[in-house]
């Protein structure tokens, strides 16, 4: 290689790498808009839920003229691919390059925890309407990670356990997905159920993406239990319900579900197999509350499907933060003031139709519905409230200080009273 070739090769390499680093997207600087970084899994196994996150979030801003506190709102969407390493990389890009004012979103707990550990270091506000990992508002709280319109995994199944006891169920078996979100939801149920005198006969754990539930359903069928509690989401939930019905257990042993089990994202493709399943959640698309119905109609008209928990949570999350920005008249330059204002605020006119506030640990307190899956007048299945538990916090009836002395829920620790 002579000098000329060396120069050619060198300049080529330099050009290539320069083109790579400089070819970052140009950002149009309008008159100082509020920039929001929204992360959602738009590819990978949970991509369907990720799209509903974006839909719900965008719907709110479109309804409200894409402005807040007198400033334009710019939403920058990034795909976290359901992978914590990717989520971390995208969070870095949004904060350091796109210079967003705050972050929003993510679906899977592991992606949320990765981003939370990143913002812990730099103080960027991060709002998590779907990330339910218990410890983010319990043992490992981070001040700038706030659960607007979100919930703690173990919070929602507790009223269901209480309801089951009141129905006279004494022996229950559980089946849950074998990862932290499953351990926590199932733990919340098992703890309340056993403390109220019930017995957890057996706990089954299936890996994510279980193709065939027949071995599990076979076991469940032989346990002679009064009811079965199932925590499944996504395709696992559809498969479980389908096989539960195919094996003839449906109608014989009542099926209770965690909130995602009968979420619209699951049951909108199902038929009779989901009919009559009981679950508990703060949101029920079949509620007769006029505010809720208005939201459900608007969402259905826009996207041609009823809202799931993901879409609803991000719609309400956007609303909550919008209210606070309006209250601050668009000035969110001081992060401490912004975060304090959010934590003190109440969500007043959300699709829930009832005000929502935070507890002292930054987790919302909700009225939780016991819901039943029934057919509506259009012939579609939806969740209708049959009973309400008012003001359910993440600590249920326990004293927070004492509750936090327990270890976090895991496969080995389910809070079961012996």
């Amino acid at each position: 290689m002579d000098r000329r070739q060396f120069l050619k090769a060198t300049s080529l390499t330099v050009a290539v790498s320069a083109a790579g680093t400089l070819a970052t997207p140009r950002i149009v600087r309008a008159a100082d808009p509020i920039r929001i970084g929204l992360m959602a899994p738009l590819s990978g196994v949970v991509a369907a839920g990720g799209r509903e996150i974006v839909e719900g979030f965008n719907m709110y801003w479109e309804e409200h003229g894409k402005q807040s506190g007198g400033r334009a709102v710019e939403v920058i969407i990034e795909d976290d691919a359901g992978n914590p390493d990717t989520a971390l990389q995208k969070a870095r890009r949004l904060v350091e390059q796109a210079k967003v004012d705050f972050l929003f979103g993510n679906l899977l707990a592991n992606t949320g925890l990765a981003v939370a550990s990143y913002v812990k270091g730099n103080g960027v506000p991060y709002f998590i309407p779907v990330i339910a990992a218990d410890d983010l508002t319990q043992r490992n709280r981070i001040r700038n990670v706030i659960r607007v319109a979100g919930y703690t995994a173990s919070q929602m199944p507790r009223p269901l356990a209480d309801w089951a006891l009141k129905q006279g169920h004494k022996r229950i078996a559980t089946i849950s997905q074998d990862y932290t979100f499953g351990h926590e939801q199932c733990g919340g149920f098992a703890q309340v159920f056993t403390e109220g005198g019930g017995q957890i006969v057996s706990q089954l754990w299936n890996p994510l993406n279980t193709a065939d539930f027949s071995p599990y359903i076979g076991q469940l069928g032989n346990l002679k239990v009064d009811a079965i509690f199932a925590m499944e989401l996504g395709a696992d939930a559809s498969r479980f319900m389908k096989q539960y019905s195919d094996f003839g257990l449906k109608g014989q042993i009542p099926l209770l579900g965690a909130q995602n089990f009968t979420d619209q994202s699951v049951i909108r493709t199902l038929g009779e197999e989901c009919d009559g399943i009981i679950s508990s959640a703060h949101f029920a698309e079949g509620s007769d509350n006029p505010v809720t119905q208005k939201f459900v109609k608007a969402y259905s008209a826009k996207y041609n499907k009823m809202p799931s928990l993901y879409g609803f949570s991000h719609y309400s999350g956007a609303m909550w933060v919008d209210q606070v920005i309006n209250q601050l008249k668009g000035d969110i330059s001081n992060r401490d003031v912004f975060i304090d204002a959010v934590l003190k605020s109440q969500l007043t006119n959300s699709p829930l139709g009832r005000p929502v506030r935070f507890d002292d640990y930054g987790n919302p307190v909700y009225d939780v519905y016991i819901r039943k899956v029934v057919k509506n007048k259009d012939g579609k299945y939806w969740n209708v409230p049959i009973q309400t538990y008012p003001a359910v916090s993440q600590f249920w009836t326990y004293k927070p200080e004492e509750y936090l002395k327990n270890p976090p829920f895991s496969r080995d620790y389910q809070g079961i009273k012996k």
Partner: protein
Amino acid sequence: MTSAISAIQRSALGFVLVLVLFGALPLVISSYQMSIANEILIFALLAMSIDVLAGYAGRTSLGHGALFGASTYVVIYWTSVYGGSAWVGCLLGVIAATLIATVFAAFAVRVSGVYFLLLTLALGMIVWGVCLRWTSVTGGENGIRGVGRPDLIANPTVFYYATLAVVLLMTFLMWRFVRSPFGLTLRGIRDSESRMRSLGYGTSVHMFVAFIVTGFFAGVAGALYALFNNFVSPSTVQLSQSVEGLLMAIIGGVGTLFGSFIGAAAIILLENVVSAYTARWQMVLGFTFIGTMIFAPEGILGALRWLISRKRWRRSSNIVTNDSNTKGGTKWIADNF
């Protein structure tokens, strides 16, 4: 080949290029872009460790991502759960990766070709399974958060240069390794294992050592990644990590060592630049891989070398024979496709 420069000069050129290009980057780019460059360096090291096996010893490993991630896990666990020093953590991480590589090697040296690929894949999946299921130690699906870098390298620019220094040192060690008499025996095994055996070489022992050495390098990359990412979860040890490392080596050029820098840069930049424009970025990535395989099967660096040598051949009418390095790529393609 009077006008051709020697392999040593060419490698020296590679070192200088990497040093100058990556060394000058922080002067012209933003902090976010520097974190991308940092990631490129770390993954180039992982890709090189795979390239040493794939390009020089003719064994394609799908287990190095697990070795990489195991080291990351040990570093993060040591610093955040046990509360130890990050320096000791890095040392332990590299040792752990090397030990696991020893176990892997004990199994893997017995086979070659597609069986080697499958065996390393299976061993890697075991590491992933352990990280996913051993919740009390690894945090399961949620992973473990780190405690941040030690003060000395907390500044991103300082950490970037520290990474560059470590990666260059490791590159030099690998370069010495593949050019040593021992490295030559690996190439011999790649070209014909039976001939090497009949010449009296203990080919299994040689492969055993080579695998452990590359595991060490993957471990160093993993320890750097722990300091960089400050978070670890099963996705760090999963199969796609190994595949990505291998793809980087292939895109850059198998058996070129320096090609890994190009491959890592190409893939990481594509991931980050394209994803800002379209949600279909993985499709773009896929087409890029297919395009590379069709138009530059020896990788970007291999294709560049080929272009240069063809020009030289035209001008001087000298017949340029393939040197053994690019032959590594050709041989690798022939063996595996």
